[in-house]
């Protein structure tokens, strides 16, 4: 009997979704758990996986936008016809997709890095040599080296994946094209991912990525506006095309919306972190002894930012029809870089949480974003947001406000500085806060006062841990 | 000028053999230089030459007092010292032509003639550069106790360079068997002596180092030989170095025969020095004292001419160096 493939409702507010692309051909033999299609919502993009075995009969085509619960297709038994009467084409043999073609179309390298404006891909000489040896097409690889350069490790990793492609996967390993892509993005060898049934799904790759030391290159994308260049680039030699859809499309639309609808400007503000660093060091052993996650410096900043919002409610607001609505609860959005984009999970009532609770909640949502297990509900309802690029070495930047908010706080790199104490020049550790605010709601001075409050809290951090 | 010639005459008389020997050395130098100068001016020979013509008595007089085991260092104007020390025309011309059969296999050219078999430790194109090296050669003589000496030839201009002062002082301190021979031709390149030092007699500089300073007529080969013998004996007795200033003159220009035609000296001055020509002087002595006939001197000129033609012929017919060997002898392996 035909099993319906329905458009799932992934969050409380989700009403519709777009078929980004079918991942398997019409008439393909499907086993349970196999990713069938890629679904885009306005927040995230997800794979819809088969809930049963069968032969795929598609009901809709790529690009269709449908209400949740709509029928997208069926999984049929052998010889069965689709309910709408359309008989699926004959099942294809084992290999349903020419992988190489699929890889080309699905490849989404970090274009800003691989193909700079000049059209030249930066590839280390050794990577070129190794690519020639291993027969790897460099245009299909994202660079992870300094400046986005493709280094030999990228080629070796890509070659390992290509070998799997050619052989249809190692014995016992069935890899979906998207999982393969994700693995490549995350720099993970899918052959090393253990699954119960030998099928490596995207969720498995995400899980593996989350448990791998974070070497994510995607953060730079997070605040990079989409290039809308109107000039002719005819002689720039496009080497690959990345469709701006799914998460990429969502980010593009929301960032453009933010920057066109708001009057955004940014204050840079240097704060001393000496007291926080000292306090954290003092408390570290106790936290460890108690089995409690040691709060990061960023957690201190988020905590201070949340507390300070209580004193500066103008920044915890939303603009609705020429009215500024000050919001009573402080729900903190936290920008999290994930492969291929950015998510902003929300911590409800962040100002009510103790520092260890905040630390735990932050880690939890970040990990679930990276593993793909975050729910759509948890990505909704932020009243303010914090984004950190400090670990990437950024000091000052201009974060883009999430639509619906009036502010976002950027956290820069902890760095050494010096200051005069009387006649002595002493070492001090500082970081730069970058507060972007919507000038329609917030003026420069109140924005600065909010930063001063954060600075004062960080200077006397005992209050943050109380 | 103080010359010990008369005193020495008793123990080292001027013999027929000595006159012939000095004459031969000087004629060979002169004709070699004149021919080589013409060959460069005609474009037949590469590079440029610092010619020794006029100063022959200094090289001939000193070198006639040395053995092949004694070492000399020379200057950019070094053909005369090499020839006086016994160098052959064939490898000399070959070197000037840049041929593999040259003394330096075509690597050194005019300014770097070397003949280790005859104690010619090399001509040196850095003014004063050979002086410390002669001190080192003398150090080796002393170290080995082999009874040899070292001589450094250099010009009046070189006595203004630091290496001269360091070397003479050190040789004096270490009591080394070395003779410093200043060939004072009155010019440091184009600058006359009174414009490059306050001294009239450079031999006076010896007093700064506590060694003897001797002045000799550099146009008189016999006189030069005599002071050289005294200095050599002194060195061999372990009494240290001597500074000899030979007053002489360069007939040709600093470089080439006609040089750059810069008028930095009076033509009358050149002519005046030529009246005291060293070869004329030795021929006059030989004939006057009945030691050597004019015909015998003429025979030396003729033989020299033949040797020169032979040398040029040899050089022209010698193979050029092969560029594939350009790295040979940078290092001793």
């Amino acid at each position, binding site marked *: 009997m035909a099993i319906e493939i329905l458009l799932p409702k992934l969050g409380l507010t989700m009403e519709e979704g777009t078929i980004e692309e079918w991942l398997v051909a019409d008439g393909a033999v499907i086993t349970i758990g196999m990713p069938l299609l890629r679904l885009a919502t306005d927040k995230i993009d997800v794979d819809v996986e088969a809930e049963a075995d069968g032969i795929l009969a598609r009901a809709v085509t790529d690009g269709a936008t449908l209400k949740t619960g709509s029928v997208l297709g069926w999984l049929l038994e052998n010889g069965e016809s689709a309910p709408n009467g359309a008989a699926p084409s004959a099942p294809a043999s084992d290999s349903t997709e020419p992988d190489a073609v699929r890889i080309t179309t699905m490849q989404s390298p970090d274009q800003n890095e691989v193909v700079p404006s000049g059209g030249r891909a930066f590839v280390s*000489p050794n990577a070129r040599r190794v690519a020639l040896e291993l027969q790897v097409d460099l245009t299909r690889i994202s660079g992870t080296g300094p400046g986005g350069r493709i280094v*030999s490790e990228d080629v070796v990793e890509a070659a390992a994946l290509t070998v799997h492609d050619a052989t249809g996967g190692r014995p016992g390993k069935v890899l979906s094209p998207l999982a393969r892509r994700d693995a490549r993005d995350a720099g993970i060898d899918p052959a090393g991912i253990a699954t119960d049934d030998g099928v490596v799904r995207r969720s498995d790759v995400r899980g593996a990525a989350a448990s791998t030391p974070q070497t994510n290159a995607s953060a730079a994308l997070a605040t990079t506006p989409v290039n809308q260049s109107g000039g002719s680039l005819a002689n720039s030699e496009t080497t690959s095309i990345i469709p701006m859809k799914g998460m990429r499309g969502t980010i593009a639309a929301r960032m453009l919306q933010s920057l066109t609808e708001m009057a955004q400007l940014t204050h840079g503000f240097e704060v001393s972190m000496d007291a926080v660093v000292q306090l954290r060091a003092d408390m570290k052993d106790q936290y460890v002894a108690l089995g409690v996650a040691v709060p990061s410096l960023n957690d201190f900043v988020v905590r201070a930012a949340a507390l300070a919002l209580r004193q500066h409610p103008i920044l915890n607001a939303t603009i609705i029809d020429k009215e500024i609505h000050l919001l009573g609860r402080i729900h903190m959005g936290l920008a999290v870089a994930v492969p291929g984009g950015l998510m902003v999970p929300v911590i409800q009532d962040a100002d009510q949480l103790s520092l260890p609770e905040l630390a735990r909640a932050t880690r939890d949502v970040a990990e679930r974003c990276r593993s793909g297990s975050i729910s759509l509900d948890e990505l909704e309802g932020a009243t303010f947001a914090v984004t950190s690029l400090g670990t990437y070495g950024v000091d000052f930047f201009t974060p883009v406000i999430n639509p619906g908010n009036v502010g976002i706080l950027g956290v820069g790199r902890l760095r050494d500085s010096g200051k005069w104490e009387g006649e002595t020049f002493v070492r001090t550790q500082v970081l730069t806060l970058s507060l972007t605010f919507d000038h329609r709601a917030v003026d420069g001075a109140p924005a600065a006062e909010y930063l001063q409050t954060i600075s004062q809290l960080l200077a006397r951090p005992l209050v943050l841990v109380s | 000028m103080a010359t010990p010639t008369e005193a020495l005459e008793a123990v080292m008389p001027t013999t027929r053999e000595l006159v012939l020997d000095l004459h031969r050395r000087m004629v060979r130098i002169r004709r070699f230089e004149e021919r080589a100068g013409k060959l460069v001016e005609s474009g037949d020979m590469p590079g440029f030459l610092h010619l020794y013509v006029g100063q022959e008595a200094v090289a001939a007089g000193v070198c006639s007092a040395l053995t092949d085991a004694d*070492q000399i260092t020379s200057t950019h104007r070094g053909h005369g010292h090499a020839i006086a020390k016994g160098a052959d025309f064939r490898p000399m011309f070959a070197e000037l032509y840049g041929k593999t059969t040259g003394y*330096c296999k075509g690597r*050194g050219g005019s300014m770097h003639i070397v003949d280790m078999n005859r104690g010619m430790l090399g001509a040196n194109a850095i003014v004063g550069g050979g002086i410390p090296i002669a*001190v080192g050669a003398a150090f080796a003589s002393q170290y080995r106790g082999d009874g040899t000496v070292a001589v450094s030839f250099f010009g009046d201009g070189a006595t203004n360079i630091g290496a001269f002062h360091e070397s003479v002082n*050190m040789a004096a301190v270490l009591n080394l068997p070395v003779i410093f021979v200043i060939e004072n031709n009155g010019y440091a390149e184009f600058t006359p002596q009174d414009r490059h030092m306050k001294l009239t007699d450079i031999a006076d500089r010896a007093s700064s180092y506590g060694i003897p300073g001797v002045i000799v007529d550099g146009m008189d080969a016999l006189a030069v030989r005599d002071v050289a013998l005294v200095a050599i004996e002194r060195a061999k007795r372990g009494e240290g170095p001597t500074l000899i200033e030979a007053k002489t003159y360069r007939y040709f220009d600093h470089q080439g025969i006609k040089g750059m035609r810069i008028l930095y000296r009076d033509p009358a001055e050149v002519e005046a020095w030529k009246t005291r020509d060293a070869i004329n002087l030795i021929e006059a002595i030989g004939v006057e004292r009945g030691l050597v006939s004019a015909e015998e001197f003429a025979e030396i000129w003729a033989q020299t001419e033949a040797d020169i033609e032979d040398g040029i012929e040899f050089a022209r017919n010698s193979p050029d160096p092969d560029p594939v060997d350009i790295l040979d002898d940078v*290092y001793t392996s």
Partner: protein
Amino acid sequence: MTTRELTYVKAFNEGMHQVMAEDPDVFLIGEDVAGYGGVFHMFDGLLTEFGGTRVVDTPISEQAIIGLGVGAAARGLRPVCDLMFMDFVGVAMDQIFNQAAKMKYMFGGNVSVPLTITTAGGAGMSAAAQHSQSLEAWLAHIPGLKVAMPASPYDAKGLIVGAIRDDNPTIVVLNKKMLGVKGPVPEELYSIPFGVANVVREGSNATIVAIGRMVVEAEKAAANLEAAGISVEIIDPRSVQPLDIDTILTSVKKTHRVLVVHEAVEFGGIGAEISSQIQESAFDYLDAPVTRLAAPFAPVPFAPILENAYVPDAPRIEAVVRRLLERK
């Protein structure tokens, strides 16, 4: 072979004693080398053992010291001429680069100059601009010279013996700051030839080519990096002329990333030569630009805080290696 711990300067001194005992043609000459034993005590005991004919004090006359060595060497002796501080090389430069270096070639191979020049270079002792320099690139630039920079007591002994036995003009540059550094040294006479690099440490992620004392700093950095899971190979060329580029290239082809570290100023330093040769011969094996870490283009400053900032050290080496290996 019996091996025990000796300081760098004692190891050098032992090499001098043994090679002078072996070869009567070897003599030592320089300022305060005999009675005083050298200002760094490099030559302690030599006068007593070998006497005033073979161990000779001189006036302060660097040109004449080297020139004497050139002349004596041309006559077949094996002089060791000491220049005390490497900065004084400049005073004697004509004899070094116009005479010693060129005689063999200029005289068509008829003369060999088995001269050894000893001197002490390097910064780190507040000796300021005229007693701290590292001028190896100057010397290495001259065809005919050989230049070694021992980076351990073992090499200090082996390289001075190798230098004296070499038939070419050699310069052995001791490092002042390493004089008291201890390390294993065999008692027996042994020789390290010039032009054979030392793989100080094997590794797989990056290569550090370190010159002179920078080898010691590189080793410290490598230990830290190893704790962080980064495996560093350290190559000490030992002699910068001749340069054992083959060993460097082999390493580069293995690690694909190279840092060249020296105390001398970066501009025109030996690191520029090494970098250039690497990119010419192993371009297709590089995953990152060949990188140099060296002194800024300034004379060596006096104040300790300035001098520390001037000379590369382990933390900076470590930071650059991390940057070479950075992946996003």
